[in-house]
């Protein structure tokens, strides 16, 4: 049993975890930076502990401070959310050393999967296909890899996730400059500047599989398609992956389960794949050993509370769900409403939200930490909230999305809502199955 849960995160995911924990009768303790001390999650948590000043390196990313906070609050478990320390093996080890349960996979899984190169190797062992590329520890090695696989290519952070430290390189003469940027970004986001090289696939779809495991059994909760991305960050996610033959979907789902079983995966995780938009061949990209931002679309179609499953498994329970019990219904779409300026190349735009009128109604869920007067500090990501719509069919979900986006009113900071309205109105999106180049081709 978990009695006192520390939440080592902020924003909408902190609030999301608090909601389920409370429903399960668990007391919640939220670690906050001074910039978040008056945030909505801070208000909703049963208790808060101040971690430090605004910059994440001195608060949410400071392992010593975060562990000291959960020890002083006498918590028996910690939920790390996504980002920050959620996939940090050193953090998980420090938590375990303090005698506290980590709501996530085993430390060895975090070590294997947090290092994206080691993850590639494990996937190969489990018989999953991967993209050409690999390790490049030095500048010379990066050049050698680049020469070997050709351009365009992708530089990816070894400790990566969320598109941080990921950059596309189109020409050999740009490689050095882009490498500097990617390493700096990786250093800032993960405290590790190492990058590796992978072939860039032009007509690719990003399809992922939600996994649940208890260390022995592993099941999947279907696919999500997250092909609509900008700067390698997802903007729109839907479940299940549309416009794809059932057998192609099943092939990806089974590969994901094979990997989860191979590594004895425990908790909620997501296997990400790059799928060729034309012939549906697929390549393993990475396994995210945490809850994903886009988990609500899976919850919408399966009716499973993924955070509850995480907490149950972390408390030592076996999975009570079996594959046969997971029966997805309908179609769900999530859009990320970010504080970004559409007139300035979607530059992040911190500030205070004067008014926040979020959509409401049948088949609509909004996960947000932003209400009127809410502050978007400059220290963290730009996510204001997620709008999730569910319909009996994809057509119904798209129509519901259009209507919801027509009613949303966020004032005080610019948002991506208008961009989402254009996406939702695009005939290619309505048809389903767009590739990762969709946004570049979207008329402004």
């Amino acid at each position, binding site marked *: 049993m978990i009695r006192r849960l520390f939440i080592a995160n902020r924003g909408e995911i902190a609030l999301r975890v608090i909601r389920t924990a409370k429903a399960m009768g668990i007391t919640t303790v939220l670690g906050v930076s001074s910039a978040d001390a008056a945030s909505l999650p801070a*208000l909703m948590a049963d208790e808060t502990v101040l971690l430090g000043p605004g910059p994440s390196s001195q608060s949410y990313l400071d392992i010593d401070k975060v562990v000291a906070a959960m020890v002083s609050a006498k918590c028996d478990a910690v939920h790390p959310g996504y980002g920050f320390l959620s996939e940090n093996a050193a953090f998980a080890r420090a938590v375990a050393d303090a005698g506290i349960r980590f709501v996530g996979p085993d430390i060895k899984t975090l070590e294997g999967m947090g290092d994206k190169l080691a993850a590639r190797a494990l996937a190969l062992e489990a018989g999953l296909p991967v993209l050409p590329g690999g390790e490049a520890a030095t500048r010379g090695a990066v050049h050698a890899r680049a020469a070997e696989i050709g351009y365009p290519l992708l530089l990816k952070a070894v400790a990566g996730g969320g598109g941080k430290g990921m950059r596309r390189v189109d020409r050999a003469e740009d490689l050095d400059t882009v490498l500097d940027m990617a390493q700096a970004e990786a250093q800032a986001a993960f405290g590790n500047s190492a990058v590796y090289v992978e072939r860039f696939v032009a007509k690719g779809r990003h399809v992922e599989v939600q996994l649940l495991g208890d260390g022995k059994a592993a099941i999947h909760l279907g696919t999500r398609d997250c092909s609509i991305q900008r700067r390698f960050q997802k903007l729109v996610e839907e479940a299940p992956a549309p416009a794809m033959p059932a057998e192609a979907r099943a092939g990806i789902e089974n590969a994901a389960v094979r990997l989860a079983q191979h590594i004895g995966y425990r908790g909620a995780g997501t296997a990400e794949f790059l799928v060729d938009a034309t012939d549906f061949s697929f390549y393993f990209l990475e396994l995210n050993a945490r809850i994903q931002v886009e988990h609500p679309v899976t919850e919408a179609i399966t009716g499973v509370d993924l955070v509850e499953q995480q907490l149950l498994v972390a408390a030592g329970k076996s999975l009570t769900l079996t594959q046969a019990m997971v029966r997805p219904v309908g179609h769900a779409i999530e859009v990320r409403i970010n504080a970004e300026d559409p007139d300035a190349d979607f530059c*992040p735009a911190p500030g205070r939200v004067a008014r926040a009128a979020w959509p*409401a109604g049948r088949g609509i869920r909004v996960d947000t930490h932003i209400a009127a*007067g809410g502050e978007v500090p400059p220290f963290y990501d730009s996510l204001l909230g997620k709008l999730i719509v569910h319909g009996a069919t994809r057509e119904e979900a798209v129509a519901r999305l259009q209507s919801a986006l027509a009613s949303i009113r966020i004032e005080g900071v610019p948002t991506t809502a208008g961009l989402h309205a254009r996406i939702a109105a695009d005939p290619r999106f309505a048809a389903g199955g767009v590739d990762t180049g969709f946004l570049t081709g979207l008329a402004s």
Partner: protein
Amino acid sequence: MNEDLPLTAEDIAEIAAIIEASPYRELDLSTRRFRLRLARGDGAEAGLTQEWQWAGSGPEAAVAEAEHAADPDTIAAPLPGTFYHAPQPGAPPFVAVGDAVGPETVVGIVETMKLMNPVHAGRAGTVAEVIVPNATMVAKGQPLIRLA
């Protein structure tokens, strides 16, 4: 510190359905802790919206956003964030006093919301002064570097 969360997403959807099927335009609910306004949207296409206000929630003192007059001799921060002189800790700075720069020269990085944004000189010149120390929070438009 407080009781359970007042309303779930399912609760909101149910109330919204009741309003939609009713002749009413909106529901305005105020308690000691929060105020919730569920209302029909403005446009014909639009559905209902939910607006929350929470007692006790609100910003700490926000980062001071000083107004900075545009000075053609300085390179200003393109956005708020943390200004860095070098691409990574320990690396040499992008530019030093006395360096000649062109409009496209990268003179620093502003990290905002975990993204590294290069700062370009914007015009040709010579670096006369690096005004802002490394790893300092800057406001949008704040002068970072003076050119001669």
